[in-house]
């Protein structure tokens, strides 16, 4: 914008210059708080910015471009139709403060989703409001706490958590004020019942379980665990992290769980792994219904729908979001379930388990060691490359880095911490056999390289824009400053 132009050309169009006029600084800012140097803002043309971000996006590994067997994360295809439906203007342009009588369509969708999730999990009631898995967990353990306190049972301050539980559980229990007691798992992956019984007592609020566990195996004695915990007055919390493995097959409610959360963004068709937004709906048995977080959707006897308030649910653990949670994620979950139907939901877990067990057998055939060779995999499984590490010094990290050279996202490594040099592999139900077979072929080549030229792995990746990073240096000398040093 050349000011000389507006001065010399008398044309009214130039009177609508959209740039803000220069603002004078307020005079009451202390001198020592004023910047001495100009703010270091990038100064690039719009086209250069567009190219910059497009180029960055092309460097991304993503589920849309590559196989992404990141164990414990369920990186599956999210059908585009779910997003298309959630983006309909009637939903997307609806103001959150619209009075309930004018938003019956959205409330109908949310109410149906509550009902469907309750049916799918074998629970009595659902609140969709938690905005992420971690918030769902916190809401769940807060409800356990509220339940005991409402009964005057004030001494229950311990939460039992198996070593094979999802990694976030101890943090949620601690945030809710519980002392965390770790219960070991046996060498076959099941919970150590003797250790469980030794800790059960009048000071135990409950147990947080993931089933199948993060060891990639189904907890076979879950009914017995539920009996023992309930007999001791505790409640069972189900972490929905691995719900993909059991969807439509077995319900947490049947297993004896009292409360659970579902990662709707993960299992029900929202792209995830990028930091949100998510949805961590919670489902409860009848005795925990009074404590559900708000708002939830209520159907009146005559059929009209409205948000429930604290007047409806005075014992609620409280309001967890201003407007019913992350509606976009909830809409996609509804669309996804609607498309799948009752039989389709069961096929999700069937193919997730089939793909995982097919990969496990093929990789075992190549010589890779399964962490639990006598167990059938759930929807994911663990390999340990301890044998390679002993033979040639190659570590799980090196195998993971080498996979990147073949355009495959690395599996989860070094988690769970129980298994040394482990790879946690989750192919998901949406990968074709051809993709799985290519992964097997690449893993065969990597195993051969590990044995014959281990330095090739230790220096990988070789074909990416950035080579092997010094992870320890990066973590020890954190540099997150925007200003040039």
């Amino acid at each position, binding site marked *: 914008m050349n000011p000389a132009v507006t001065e010399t050309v008398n044309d009214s169009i130039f009177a609508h210059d959209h740039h803000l006029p220069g603002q004078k600084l307020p005079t009451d800012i202390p001198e020592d708080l004023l910047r001495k140097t100009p703010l270091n803002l990038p100064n690039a043309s719009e086209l250069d910015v567009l190219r910059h971000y497009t180029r960055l996006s092309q460097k991304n590994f993503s589920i849309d471009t590559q196989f992404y067997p990141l164990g414990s994360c369920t990186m599956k295809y999210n059908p585009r139709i779910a997003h298309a439906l959630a983006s309909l203007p009637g939903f997307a342009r609806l103001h959150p403060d619209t009075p309930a009588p004018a938003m019956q369509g959205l409330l109908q969708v949310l109410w149906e989703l509550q009902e469907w999730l309750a049916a799918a999990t074998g629970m009595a009631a659902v609140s969709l409001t938690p905005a992420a898995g971690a918030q769902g967990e916190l809401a769940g353990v807060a409800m356990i706490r509220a339940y005991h306190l409402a009964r005057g049972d004030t001494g229950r301050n311990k939460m039992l958590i198996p070593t094979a539980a999802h990694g976030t559980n101890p943090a949620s229990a601690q945030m809710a004020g519980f002392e965390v007691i770790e219960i070991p798992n046996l060498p076959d992956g099941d919970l150590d019942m003797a250790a469980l019984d030794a800790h059960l007592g009048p000071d135990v609020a409950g147990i947080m379980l993931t089933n199948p566990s993060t060891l990639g195996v189904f907890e076979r004695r879950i009914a017995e665990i539920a009996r023992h915990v309930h007999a001791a007055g505790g409640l069972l919390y189900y972490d929905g992290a691995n719900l993909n493995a059991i969807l439509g097959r077995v319900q947490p409610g049947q297993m004896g769980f009292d409360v659970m959360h579902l990662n709707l963004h993960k299992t029900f068709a929202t792209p995830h792994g990028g930091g949100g937004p998510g949805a961590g709906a919670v489902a409860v048995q009848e005795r925990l219904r009074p404590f559900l977080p708000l708002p939830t959707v209520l159907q009146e006897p005559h059929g009209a729908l409205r948000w429930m308030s604290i007047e409806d649910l005075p014992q609620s653990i409280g309001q967890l979001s201003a407007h019913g949670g992350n509606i976009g994620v909830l809409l996609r979950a509804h669309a996804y379930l609607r498309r799948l139907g009752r039989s389709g939901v069961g096929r999700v877990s069937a193919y997730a388990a089939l793909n995982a067990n097919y990969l496990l057998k093929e990789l075992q055939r190549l010589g890779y060691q399964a962490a639990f060779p006598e167990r059938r995999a759930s929807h994911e499984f663990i390999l340990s490359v301890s044998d390679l590490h002993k033979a040639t010094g190659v570590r799980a990290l090196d195998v993971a880095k080498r996979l990147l050279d073949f355009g495959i996202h690395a599996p989860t490594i070094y988690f769970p911490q129980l298994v040394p040099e482990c790879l946690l592999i989750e192919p998901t139900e949406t990968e074709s056999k051809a993709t799985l077979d290519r992964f097997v072929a690449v893993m065969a080549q990597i195993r051969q390289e590990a044995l014959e030229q281990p330095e090739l792995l230790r220096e990988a990746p070789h074909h990416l824009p950035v080579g092997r990073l010094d992870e320890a240096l990066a*973590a020890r000398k954190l540099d997150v400053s925007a200003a040039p040093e």
Partner: protein
Amino acid sequence: MSKIPESLRYSSTHEWVEDLGDGRYRVGITDHAQALLGDLVYAEVPEIEKNLQAGTVCGVLESVKAAADLYAPIDGKVLERNEALNDSPQLLNEDPYGQGWMMVVAAESSAYAGLMDAAAYANIAEA
């Protein structure tokens, strides 16, 4: 195999304890522990004066692979902490029994005597 000095005593949670005399004991993590954790990037050592209870969490260790709890190997009170670990957590990897020490605690000699000797710890570490 990892180093397990004969002169120290050990906990099942992979800490070593050195008798400095006068009821003072130096504490760190074992060579086996640092090898399992990998490159350490952060260590949170309990504050001075803090009372420790054997077998309970008293700090945090973070490596590029994992975050792990630090357990107190012995009942006692923290007298000194190794401030050098704030800037150089790699000392835990490079010299776990020397410059990578974590704290000095005041404790009873009977508690120290209850810890494992090197041979007993070797059975755990190399199992």
